């Protein structure tokens, strides 16, 4: 065989390899995409018929076999609000510290390491922690406030990273201009840097909060009740969508399936719509600001 023919066959083989690799890797990505679409599709398909005004606004009736899921929706909203109340100030503060104040060095490295590690602690461990600290030592009992504090710990790393990331994208020129005009560091951060970074901070936080709203394991131990009326104070246990869904899905006596799937759809829709709206708002804000 002549050398040019050998070269040609090698090129051919390399091309064939490339096509095969493309097909295989593409198929793997397609699997991930199809799995996601399948999950969303199944939930919408099974849950959509049961969404009615009564289902969303009524109390459960005859041992969850009829009626609505309003107290669970209310409880999840209250838990998420409480989580935001505790996690946002601390998380944004920590993000500002990391981006604006911390110097590069061992101490900052340790802080960063702990944040990354916090994000990886299993949610059930947060549940145990919340049970030990908030429910028992702080005497809150199984309650809205204990659940909110537990979920806040779980959400903190997300809020911190989102804030830091958003602050880092603000150009250094803006800070220097503000400082050159005689503003203190605090004023520079509060009046110049934070407003510019707000869209990123808000969106990242909403994504973190919506994930907290879907968490089940921590609230099993700290906040959730199978059946409870609407809470009158933060020291009472609440119903919550994820816990409600868990109980209904695993109960020996199955409740009406339309309630189970309806609850799943409300949970998924709430969590994803909040995230999508937040992302859309961020991209609109970003297109308004030009550095």
């Amino acid at each position, binding site marked *: 065989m002549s050398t040019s023919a050998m070269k040609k066959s090698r090129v051919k083989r390399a*091309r064939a390899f490339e096509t095969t690799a493309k097909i295989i890797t593409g198929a793997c*990505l397609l699997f991930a995409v199809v799995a996601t679409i399948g999950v969303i599709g199944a939930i919408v398909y099974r849950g959509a018929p049961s969404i009615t005004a009564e289902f969303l606004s009524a109390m459960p009736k005859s041992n969850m076999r009829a009626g609505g899921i309003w107290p669970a929706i209310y409880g999840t909203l209250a838990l998420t609000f409480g989580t935001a109340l505790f996690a946002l100030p601390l998380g944004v503060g920590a993000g*500002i510290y990391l981006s604006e104040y911390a110097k590069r060095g061992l101490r900052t490295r340790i802080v960063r390491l702990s944040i990354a590690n916090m994000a990886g602690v299993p949610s*059930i461990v947060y549940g145990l922690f919340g049970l030990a600290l908030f429910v028992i030592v702080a005497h809150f009992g199984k309650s809205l406030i204990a659940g909110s504090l537990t979920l806040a710990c779980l959400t903190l790393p997300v809020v911190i990273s989102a804030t830091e990331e958003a602050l880092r994208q603000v150009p250094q020129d803006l800070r220097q201009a503000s400082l050159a005009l005689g503003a203190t560091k605090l004023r520079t951060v509060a009046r110049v840097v934070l407003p510019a970074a707000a869209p990123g901070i808000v969106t990242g936080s909403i994504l973190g909060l919506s994930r907290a709203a879907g968490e089940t394991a921590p609230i099993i131990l700290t906040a959730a009740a199978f059946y409870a009326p609407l809470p009158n104070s933060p020291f009472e246990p609440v119903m919550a969508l994820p816990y409600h869904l868990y109980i209904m899905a695993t109960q020996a006596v199955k409740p009406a399936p339309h309630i189970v799937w309806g609850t799943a759809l409300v949970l998924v829709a709430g969590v994803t719509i909040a995230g999508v709206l937040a992302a859309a708002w961020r991209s609109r804000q970003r297109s308004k600001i030009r550095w």
Partner: protein
Amino acid sequence: MTVPSSQKTARKGRPAFNRAADAIARRSIWVCGWVAIAVLVAIFVFLAWNATQALRDVGLWKMLSGTDWYPTIEPARYGFLPSIVGSLWVTGIALLLAVPIGIAGSIYLSEFATGWVKEVTKSVVEFMVAVPSVVLGLLGLAYLAPLLATTFHVSSGLMALTAGLVVGIMSLPTIISISEDALHSVPKDLRQGSLALGNTRWQTIYKVVVPSASSGIFAAVMLGLGRAIGETMVVLMLAGNSGLIISSPLEAARTLTGTIAQEMGEVVSGGEHYSVLFTMGLVLFVITFLINLAADMVLERQRKRWRR
């Protein structure tokens, strides 16, 4: 006045107030910065403190090496091995599914996909992260468990395999997005150099890009592993919760996370069983801590390598 006049004019307005506000803000922000460490330490302290009773009365080694989990009979036996083995099976199956598919998918996403295909697939894959795990558990109960039960001719689909597959699908987006980041951060020069030497794109990928990003990909696998070990609801709903040490994925299994979630609600607060469950939480915390630490250190090394 001893203050030089130039300094005086520089601090016009309300200098004392401004300086005080600045100092207070700096301190409170500093406190916020350390909150992450405080929480981590607090988690460890509270778990360890509640675990002391079990560590003293039962003993750590006896729990870790115990083969029987009968917490409610007299005398109670608190062996962690059934849960540990179950966790290993579920996590192993999950990674067997998620690692090859995730890495291959991220290679396509980073190296072959372009334009809208890239944007859309990325958003769709990341959408999965938003789906609460209890919902995936419900889907597993409704569709996957019956399907696997008929496929493998077992009486119930609640077994390690079912839980592992769903956990694997759950950890896919983590692995895809982190290893895509790692591939993406490999400098263009390296790719162009390889292409200029006559390599095809695929040869460039497996000879240059993937080896350069290997530490990032490793970190992605470690983080996926951490996710999989810590996952609670899917396992609680799908693994079947038997008390035995399993030797095949077609058996009902219990895991560390599932055991804690299921039994914590029923135990007497402050009792021995209660303390044993806290010990289990402590074991879980230490395992995930070490995994995340390893992942973070590898990622940091990668970051340093490409920082110029």
